[in-house]
């Protein structure tokens, strides 16, 4: 069975207000990079807060960081690196016009993204079991003797849930796009959408590559 053999035409359809396809593609790439700039600065604010907490309360932050599920975080990083690989695969195949293979890679990417979220959900559940949710007012907090540790644990929830939200958005867009891309003729008109989305996906990966050490590793 040959998935790659069903080559389809690869290209981008010109939208009327652009002069050339080349211009249209450049605009799309630049637009995504401009958006990613803002994403980086968004998360930078959280990383800065984590750093300041570490400076103000070193012991408490260390204690809190030791309670995070280090190994789930590490496995999740592996999962995201894997999803980046499948996303790169989808982009490569889209350039070749191998539509079915591309769709499979996209589905794999969405599956890995979902796996990340499931593991994250399990991690939250384990945190809940261990009374590591200081923002819940009706549930006693494990490290109640160390008030500043609350701050770091809470920041961990803000940062990871914001990242999770980005990932969830990414998966949703990816699934919609997979559905569109599975129809014939997609690659002939919108090949660059795969590439643009790929940038976003890799960047979520990049943010996690920064978040994992910031939250789990550096403060141990």
């Amino acid at each position: 069975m040959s998935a790659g053999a069903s080559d389809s035409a690869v290209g981008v359809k010109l939208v009327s207000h652009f002069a050339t396809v080349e211009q249209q593609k450049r605009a799309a790439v630049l637009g995504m990079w401009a958006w990613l700039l803002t994403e980086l600065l968004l998360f930078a604010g959280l990383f800065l807060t984590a750093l300041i907490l570490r400076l103000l309360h070193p012991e408490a932050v260390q204690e809190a960081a030791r309670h995070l599920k280090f190994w789930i975080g590490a496995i999740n990083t592996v999962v995201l690196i894997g999803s980046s690989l499948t996303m790169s695969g989808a982009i490569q195949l889209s350039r070749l016009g191998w539509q079915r293979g591309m769709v499979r890679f996209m589905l794999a990417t969405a599956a890995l993204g979902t796996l990340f979220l499931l593991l994250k959900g399990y991690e939250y559940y384990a945190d809940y079991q261990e009374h590591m949710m200081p923002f819940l007012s009706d549930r006693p907090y494990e490290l109640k003797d160390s008030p500043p540790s609350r701050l770091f644990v809470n920041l961990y929830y803000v940062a990871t849930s914001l990242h999770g939200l980005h990932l969830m958005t990414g998966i949703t867009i990816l699934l919609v796009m997979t559905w569109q891309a599975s129809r014939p003729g997609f690659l002939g008109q919108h090949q660059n959408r795969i590439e643009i989305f790929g940038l976003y996906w890799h960047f979520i990966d990049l943010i996690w590559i920064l978040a994992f050490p910031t939250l789990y590793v550096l403060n141990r």
Partner: protein
Amino acid sequence: MNPTDLALQLWPAAASATAVETDWLILAFTVLTLLLTVPVFVAITWFAIRYRQGEEADRSHGNVRSVLIEISWMLIPFLLTLIFFVWGARLFFISKQVPGDAMVIEAIGRQWMWKFQHPTGQSEINDLHLPIGQPIKIRMISQDVIHNLYLPALRMQMATLPDRYTELWFKADRTGSYRLYCSEYCGTDHSKMDGNLTLMTQADYAAWLQNAGAQQGGQAGAGRVVYESYGCGACHDPGAKVRAPALAGLYGREVRLADGRTVTADETYLRDKILNPNRQKLAADYKQVMPAFRNVIPPDDLDRLVSYLKSTGATAQQEAKP
């Protein structure tokens, strides 16, 4: 002089040498501002009249060395204004270096009042009486939101933060009644969080302390009461059931910590240990059993308690000497 007597005032009274110098600074800066702006205003007006459309005028243009012009009007004003940066920074540094002999006033801001405590223990609400000719340091903290103690006659203000001490100092040289304000917006009655700053001669101040006598007995005496009321003695008194470090003579001593470090038991150390004993710096050979008093003990009580602990330290040292 009473500030309310003035219907229209155009320049604030200055009650210290620093305030007078700040005034000179802003006046000199204004002169520079005028030097830089008046030519622009005059030029714009003059050009608007001279080169109005339809007016006969010489509109021929010779060669202009534009790079030279651009660089000069970029750099010359910048360098001139930098003089004022240096001057301002110098005054700022002076205002940050507290003389050793400064009299310390403890100030507490809370929604929506000021509380000032004199070194002799008297305290007053919103109004502040102080002597001239004597460096005065105001050490302040807030009990709730951020406030800002603003003394316009001294050209001085500083934020009061919750849980962190800030300070400002000055040496007034003119008696009189002036305003003091909260200048950081702090909620409903922000604009009522003001009062009068009365600067008086040292003799008058001494007399005022005698007569005002709001809360006699001094900080340390009040602190002893706090010590009792929070039950500190149950663990820390000699012979208490729970083995806790003795506090008499602790202040100023070196303390060996559980992690091997040695720290001096200064005021910050005492405060930290009371507010949050777990945070760090557990004393060697003791177990961590003390509860945290953060959010339990109000800042003014804490001040009194720390004063008391300091006084017991001094007593113990005097006893140890002979």
